[in-house]
């Protein structure tokens, strides 16, 4: 049987490696944004380089997984769904990279009064993405547990939205000491952090439908 499964096992290893890379990317994003907010630009720069490498690895793995699934006719019935899911996860990685580059290029000035709440926003957004990954792993081994795992993704995504709303409201209603351009820039930066949780939600929606297909 091992002869028949050789290609399958190799693909499983690559899928696991891909998920690990995304997991690591989220972790680096969390730490990178936190160090930026706290003003540790050196640490931020290190994290940015790391994200760059992880994104390249994720892209390579994504291509290899797709190729192998097609070439060796792996999971023919669910291939389309799995490939789409991997693309969605890669979108998260791309989102992380682009967000961190926005910080690096635009060097947004975050008022000290917003530091704590911005870290909370970052945490909630990263949590949403992080909670998606156990559900992705469960899809392959215990599809009936996927939906309960996804509840956390939806919870953190909703938390991210609420925090983002609070920050934006505070900026535009309470912080009269900063000019409109700065406010608009802050809104833009918030959107970049928030985007990660939105991407996680898109992945969760897809995964939820995929797991139902497997269960019925």
């Amino acid at each position: 049987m091992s002869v028949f499964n050789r290609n399958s096992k190799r693909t499983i290893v690559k899928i696991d490696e891909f998920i690990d890379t995304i997991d690591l990317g989220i972790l680096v994003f969390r730490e990178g944004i936190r160090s930026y907010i706290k003003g540790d630009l050196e640490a931020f720069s290190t994290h940015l380089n790391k994200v760059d490498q992880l994104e390249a690895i994720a892209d390579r793995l994504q291509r290899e997984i797709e190729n192998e699934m097609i070439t060796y006719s792996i999971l023919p019935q669910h291939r389309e769904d799995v490939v789409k899911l991997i693309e969605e996860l890669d979108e998260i990685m791309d989102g992380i990279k682009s967000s961190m580059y926005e910080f690096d290029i635009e060097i947004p000035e975050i008022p000290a009064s917003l530091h704590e709440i911005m870290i909370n926003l970052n945490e909630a957004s990263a949590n949403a993405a992080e909670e998606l990954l156990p559900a992705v792993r469960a899809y392959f081994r215990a599809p009936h547990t996927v939906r309960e795992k996804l509840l956390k993704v939806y919870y953190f995504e909703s938390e991210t939205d609420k925090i983002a709303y609070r920050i934006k409201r505070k900026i535009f209603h309470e912080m009269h000491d900063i000019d409109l351009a700065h406010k608009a820039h802050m809104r833009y930066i918030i959107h970049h952090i928030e985007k990660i949780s939105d991407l996680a939600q898109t992945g969760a929606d897809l995964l939820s439908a995929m797991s139902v297909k497997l269960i019925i």
Partner: protein
Amino acid sequence: MILFFLISGLFLGWSLGANDASNVFGSAVGSKMITFRKAAVIASVFVILGAVIQGAGASNTLGKLGSVNAIGGSFTVALAAAVTVYMMTRLSLPVSTTQAIVGAIIGWNLFTGNRTDVATLTTIVSTWITGPILGAIFAVLLYMVIRRIKRRSGIHLIIFESYIKTGLIIVGAFGAYSLGANNIANVMGVFVPAFSLEDLNLGIFTLSSARQLFLLGGLAIAAGIITYSKKVMETVGTGIVSLSSEAAFVVVLSQALVLFIFSSSFLSDLLSRAGLPRIPLVPVSSTQVIVGSVIGIGLYKGVRNLNFRILGEIATGWISTPVIAGILSFFSLFFVRNIFNIDIGTKIHDAGPAENLSKPWNISEVMKYVILAIIAAGLIMVIYYYLLEKKKETEFRRSEERFWKYFK
């Protein structure tokens, strides 16, 4: 001349291969789990093996229904069945080769004044109902077991699917074997009483007259699979697979089991020795068993809106196919005897021993070369596929290396 009379049976075999192979490998090919070429080679080899090794049981039962004792009669009966199958397929009506041949044999009985053995007929007809029901029962039980194993083992989806893929190939081979064993009676059953060829000694084993006919019938079925079943597999297969891969596996396995049970003299003897009633060795319709299995799984999964149209079509097929084949057989026999002046058989008690038809042509010699050619072709195919797989793997590796070299 002998080969000419066999043409109708070979045509019937060809159409059976073209249509019924999709029941065995349709799900695997339709879902692109295995290529058509692989499926066709496996199905062809195992259909021939099943026909030659285990084809006698179901064929004897058909012989009891009506022992067509002249090759002209066998030719006409098989032709009537083949034309019925072809016509009904063209009209997209559900059709079973088994029911067509039974109707055609009854037509011969009526024309020649032979009595139709009611007990045998009842046995055959009862399996048309028990076949799909048994298929449904097997399907539900197997489905329950597989689902439970899958859930409890926590097996990775990709590994599970790869097992299913391998399983579909193995079960497909078993299904093809059972199809050959069970349905060869439809193709060659009517020729068996009329033909008496010399035994063919191949050194390791000897092929009797009936087995030589079964080998030819098996080859015709294989030709049908190779030349015409691709389209049917790709269309019918996707219909079955729309359930799920494990359901497709279960459906093919339960169909193979039902066909095997109704053609295994060993199982029948075993039950008889245990004091239980014997299993009737009867050709059953593989399509109807498949439909029964699919309905079984549907009911287990709680499908409330059962498609009564399909059930109605099956029931209509039970009646319309044998009736059409019987009428066609009756009138064809009339024309063959009165216009072409060919002997189509007589009442059994008047019939003398069957003419030894191997005398004018030494068929056994021809068969020896046919068997050698099959073995040689099989070996060439195996080597060819091995080399093809190797080439594919090397090309894939090179393409990956080129891409990353370019990327860097």
